[in-house]
């Protein structure tokens, strides 16, 4: 099945960037009470670029794999550029552009945390 391809399952079982930063510039917790998915995102920023990013939390395979893959993608990007990152692009990065509407929230939960983290910066 496409939704649970090996790449997604690998990121779910062994998530990248899982953990906490000692000195985050900004941190944000996004929670979906409907299913209990929770992602805490921590960002470290240097010279207008995202230097380092970590996440913790729990949830379904899609939300955790999404946090893992999204955080991989974010490192080194310009903050200004990330502020206008569209959700559509995130789904492309995740390889989940055709995800069913019912699972969209799971896939975009870490992205919501990112948007709100960046909003806290300004």
């Amino acid at each position, binding site marked *: *099945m496409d939704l649970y391809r090996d790449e997604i399952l690998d990121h779910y079982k062994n998530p990248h960037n899982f953990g906490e930063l000692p000195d985050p510039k900004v941190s944000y917790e996004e929670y979906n*009470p*409907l*299913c*209990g998915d929770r992602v805490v995102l921590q960002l470290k920023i240097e010279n207008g670029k995202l230097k380092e990013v970590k996440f913790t939390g729990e949830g*379904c*395979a*899609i939300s955790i794999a999404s946090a893992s893959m999204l955080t991989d993608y974010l490192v080194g990007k310009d903050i200004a550029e990330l502020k206008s990152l569209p959700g559509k692009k995130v789904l492309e990065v995740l390889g989940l552009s055709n995800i069913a509407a019912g*699972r969209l929230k799971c896939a975009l939960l870490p992205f919501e945390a990112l948007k709100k983290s960046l909003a806290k910066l300004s």
Partner: protein
Amino acid sequence: MFDVNKIREDFPILKRKINGHDLVYLDNAATSQKPKAVIEAVADFYENHNANVHRGVHTLSEEATQMYEEARVRVAKFINARLPSEIIFVRNSTEALNLIVWSRGKAHLKKGDEILLSEMEHHSNLVPWQLLAKEVGAVLKFISFDENGELEISNLKSQFSNRTKVVSVVHVSNSLGTINPIKEMTKLAHEVGAIVVVDAAQSVPHMKVDVQSLGCDFLAFSGHKMLGPMGIGVLYGRQELLEVMPPFLSGGDMIRSVTINDATWNEVPYKFEAGTPNVAGAVGLSAAIGYLANLGMDNVRQHEIKLTDYALKKLSVIPGLKVLGPLDAQKRGGVIAFTLKGTHPHDLASVLDGEGIAVRSGHHCTMPVHLRLGIPASTRASFYIYNTKEEVDKLVDGLEKAKRLLTK
């Protein structure tokens, strides 16, 4: 004669392939599928009889009115109401419960009065009471459930006081599956003069429900969970109570006369049916009841007990799987919610969907039940007349597959 294979032929949707597999529909607690008889009854209404009811004298309007009122009579007989006028057509159980809360509840409840609910209520029998309690200053009290998911009614008497005005409880829980002892609870409630409201959304479709035997004052259910169309539901209420209740929604059809400054109300049940009703929905529900009555509700219940018993046995041997609610099929409806260690309900439901199996994941509109159990969500399989043991086996195989994929 209850022949599942024959029943399945009556449901066109069961021929559908989902992701390359035969559809295994196990989301019946959310909504049931529809037999040809219901689909055709709705089509026949629109093709041959469509007109607005009550206000016309032309032939079609009289036919539509007659069909609508025949549906009311059929519903009344199905739940053994004394009179057809005790049947009010609404959209669904939620609207029926809101009608009670905002008509009877708002007119009768005062500051300090008590509303007794259970901890296992669907949000539709909880949130409207919360709003009313806030508005009038009434107090919500809750009957708890034990570790088996059964209501703790041994000390029920101690929860009543002379301020208890309403007891509103679910007949069959849509997440725990528990069948609650409504008859006993009604007897106790009536001793202190409280009225009893029953959320029967998960009972009327699946077992014989007799409102006179239960003794309840009001009972709510939805047509779409019992083979009928969406958008038609029923509130049963005792005639003498309905007669003194103020209207809920107002406008056309529910009035006797209107002057520019005032209005008087039509008789029961029309006082509560403002605007053009869902006539096709009522006609479809009538056909659904005809279908169920032909099978026999006792046979429907026996079929579901057998399936539930089989499913409970098969599921309980899956390591890490925990069923919510009572483990005795006699004590529960055909609703089995569960958790599977190391897997999230949404992932389970998605993997099962890949196998053509429709289940529900989430909190099933019973967040307080899940909070009480300390889980964010669960996966729920729920059965109806067309489900088979082979489908339960497919569910179990699907769960094994999901476990292999998802467990770390």
